[in-house]
C-alpha cells in the first residue's frame, strides 16, 4: 500500500476544492436518498457515501482529454467530473433535462461532451468498453487515458481478467481503478475471492499495480496521479486498487443482513470527509468558517439541482422509440 505521499503544490485553494467536491457528493446523495423515500426517485439507487475520496482523488489525475467509464454507483464520479448536479438529479427524476434524457436513471449517467461514457450496470461490463476507448485513442494517436472504475465484485468476472490481459497485451492507455469496498453487493471479499489482495491480480497479466487507502483523498490523488503518469508515458495500462468502504446499504432495498453494525461504525470513524477536515485543520489550511461556507454553497447547489429536476419537462410518450437507432441523415 502506498504510504501517504506529499502532494506537491497542495495549497489551500486546491484543498478546499477537494473538500467541496466530497461534501457536494455527500449532500447530493443524502438529498437523493430523501427524495427516494418520497417517491421522486425510483428504480435502483446506489449511494456512494463513504467512498467520496476515491472519485474526487482519482479525478484529479484526469484531464478533459481523458475518458471515464463508471459503474451503476457513479454519482460521485459524475459530480467529480463536473457533470452539473441539476442534470444528474433530473436524470434520477426521469426528466427530459436529465443527462441521459431520463432514459438511464441513477445507474446510467452519460455526458459525452465531458467524455463521461456511462454508468454501466452489468458488473464488469464496462471494462471491455474502456479497453476499446483506449484502443480508439491509440489508433487515432490521440493523447488520452481511459479511466475505468469498477468494484471488487467485478474482479470475479471473466471480463476483468480478459480486459487486463488485452489492455496489457496491446499496451493500451487504460487506468483500471478498482474501488474495493469489501463487498460484492452482500458478499464479503473474503467470501468471493481466493486472493483478496486485488492488486496482485495484475502480476499475472504483467501490468503495474498499486493499492492505496481510499479513505484518504490526498493519498488517492497522489497514487492516481502516479498511475496516470505511468499510463501516459505509453507503457500500457495500470491497475490501482482503492481500498474503501460504503457506509450505506448496497441499494435502498438492502437490509444489510450480511455485515455487522460495529464494522460499519468502525469504518465511519475513517470518514474521508471528517478525516480530511481534521487533517487540513492540523495543517492550518482550514478553519471552521471555511467548512460552513462550503456547506452553505453546497446546500444551495443541491437545492438548485432539485429545482432544476422539479421544473424539468417529461419527454412526450410519442418519443418512446426515439434513439433506438440513429436517425437517418437527411
Amino acid at each position: 500500500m502506498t504510504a501517504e505521499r506529499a502532494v506537491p503544490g497542495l495549497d489551500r485553494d486546491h484543498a478546499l476544492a477537494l473538500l467541496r467536491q466530497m461534501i457536494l457528493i455527500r449532500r447530493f446523495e443524502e438529498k437523493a436518498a430523501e427524495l427516494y423515500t418520497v417517491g421522486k426517485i425510483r428504480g435502483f439507487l446506489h449511494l456512494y457515501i463513504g467512498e467520496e475520496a476515491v472519485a474526487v482523488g482519482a479525478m484529479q489525475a484526469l484531464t478533459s482529454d481523458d475518458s471515464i467509464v463508471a459503474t451503476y454507483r457513479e454519482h460521485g464520479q459524475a459530480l467529480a467530473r463536473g457533470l452539473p448536479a441539476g442534470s444528474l438529479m433530473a436524470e434520477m427524476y426521469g426528466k427530459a433535462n436529465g443527462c441521459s434524457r431520463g432514459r438511464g436513471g441513477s445507474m446510467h449517467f452519460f455526458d459525452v461532451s465531458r467524455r463521461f461514457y456511462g454508468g454501466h450496470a452489468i458488473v464488469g461490463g464496462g471494462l471491455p468498453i474502456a479497453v476499446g476507448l483506449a484502443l480508439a485513442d491509440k489508433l487515432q494517436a490521440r493523447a488520452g487515458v481511459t479511466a475505468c472504475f469498477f468494484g471488487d465484485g467485478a474482479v470475479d468476472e471473466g471480463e476483468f481478467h480478459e480486459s487486463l490481459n488485452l489492455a496489457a497485451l496491446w499496451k493500451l492507455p487504460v487506468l483500471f481503478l478498482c474501488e474495493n469496498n469489501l463487498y460484492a453487493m452482500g458478499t464479503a471479499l473474503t467470501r468471493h475471492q481466493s486472493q483478496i489482495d486485488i492488486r496482485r491480480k495484475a502480476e499475472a497479466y504483467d501490468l503495474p499495480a498499486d493499492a492505496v487507502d481510499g479513505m484518504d483523498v490526498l493519498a488517492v490523488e497522489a497514487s492516481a496521479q502516479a498511475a496516470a503518469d505511468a499510463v501516459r508515458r505509453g507503457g500500457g495500462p495500470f491497475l490501482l486498487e482503492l481500498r474503501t468502504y460504503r457506509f450505506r446499504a448496497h441499494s435502498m432495498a438492502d437490509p444489510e443482513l450480511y455485515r455487522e453494525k460495529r464494522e460499519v461504525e468502525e469504518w465511519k470513524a475513517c470518514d474521508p470527509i471528517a478525516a480530511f477536515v481534521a487533517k487540513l485543520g492540523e495543517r492550518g489550511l482550514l478553519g471552521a468558517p471555511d467548512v460552513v461556507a462550503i456547506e452553505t454553497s453546497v446546500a444551495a447547489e443541491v437545492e438548485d439541482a432539485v429545482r432544476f429536476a422539479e421544473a424539468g419537462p417529461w419527454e412526450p410518450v410519442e418519443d418512446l422509440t426515439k434513439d433506438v437507432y440513429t436517425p437517418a441523415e437527411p
Partner: protein
Amino acid sequence: MTKMTYRDALRSALRQALRSDPRVFVMGEDVGRYGGSFKVTYGLLEEFGPERVRDTPLSESTFLGAGIGAAIGGMRPIVEIMTVNFSLLALDQIVNNAATLRHMSGGQLSVPLVVRMATGGGRQLAAQHSHSLEGWFAHIPGIKIVTPAVPADARGLLLAALGDPDPVFVFEHATLYPMEGEVDEEAGPARIGEALVRRSGDAVTLITYGGSLGKTLQAADQLAVDGIEAEVIDLRSLRPLDIATVLASVAKTHRAVIVDEGWRMVSLAAEVSAQIMEGGFYSLDAPVARVCSTEVPMPYAKHMEDAALPQAATIRETVTEMLRAHG
C-alpha cells in the same frame, strides 16, 4: 460483373473498406496470421498490417466490448467472432451494451460497430458448432441483423453494415463460403431492411434467408416440374424485417411456407408467421407452414444431421401437402 466466391466477396468489401476509410480495422480470433478460420481475411494482414488486422486473445466478450468502445471512440471496427456458437460468450456486450448505449445515453452516442460471424449447421460439427441463432439476435432492438445468402449480398450487405451508424451483425452461413456467384465490384452497398424476390411464382410464397435460400430455390425448381410455381423471398435482413415484400407476395399466392434453419420453437419463422397473420390473414387460403430444424441438439452422424435440418425434399413435401389439403 466478376464471378467470385462468397468468401472472396466478403474480402472484397473488407479490402475496399480498409482502403477507403482509415477508421476501419478488423479484429478477431485468427483473423491475421492464420488468415481467418474461413479464409475471409486471408491476405489482409500482409496488405494492411497488424495495427488494422488484429489477432485477439480468445476473449469474445472483451474483444467485442472493445469493438463497442472503439466505435464510440471514433473508429469503425469490424469484429469477427469466429462462429455464432462463440458469440454466446459475448452476449452480455451485445445485448446490454451494443444494443442499448444509444438509447440509454439519451441519444448521445452511436455505436458504428460491424460484427461478422459464421452461422449454421450441415458440416457434421455436432451440437456445439452448428447453431443457427440469428433469430435470437433479431429479437433485440438496437442492433440490426443481416443474412447474405449470395456472394453479391455478402459484399453489398457488408458494405451497408459498414456505412451504418448502428451495430450491424452479419451472419454468414458457413456452407456458403465456397459458393460462387456474379458480383459487381463497382456496386455500392445494398440496402439493409430490403427483402428480394429471388424467384417469381403464383402458387405459394416460400420465405427464407441465408443458408436455406439454396435449398429453397432447389425445392422450387422441383415443384416447377410438378407444375407448381413457387415464389421465393430472400429476407436478407432479419431486423429490420421487410414484411411488406412478404405480404405483397402472399396477397398474390395466398399461401406461405417459411424455411428457417433455427429451431421451430420461438423462431424467426414464428415471427414471420405471426406478422403474416397480423397483416395478411384474409389473403391466406391455408395455414402458414414452417420448415425448421428439429428440436434436438445437432447430432454428429450425417444421416441424423440431414434429418434435423431443413432440406429441399422437406420443403417440397410441405408445399405439396399444403396444396393437397388446401388447394
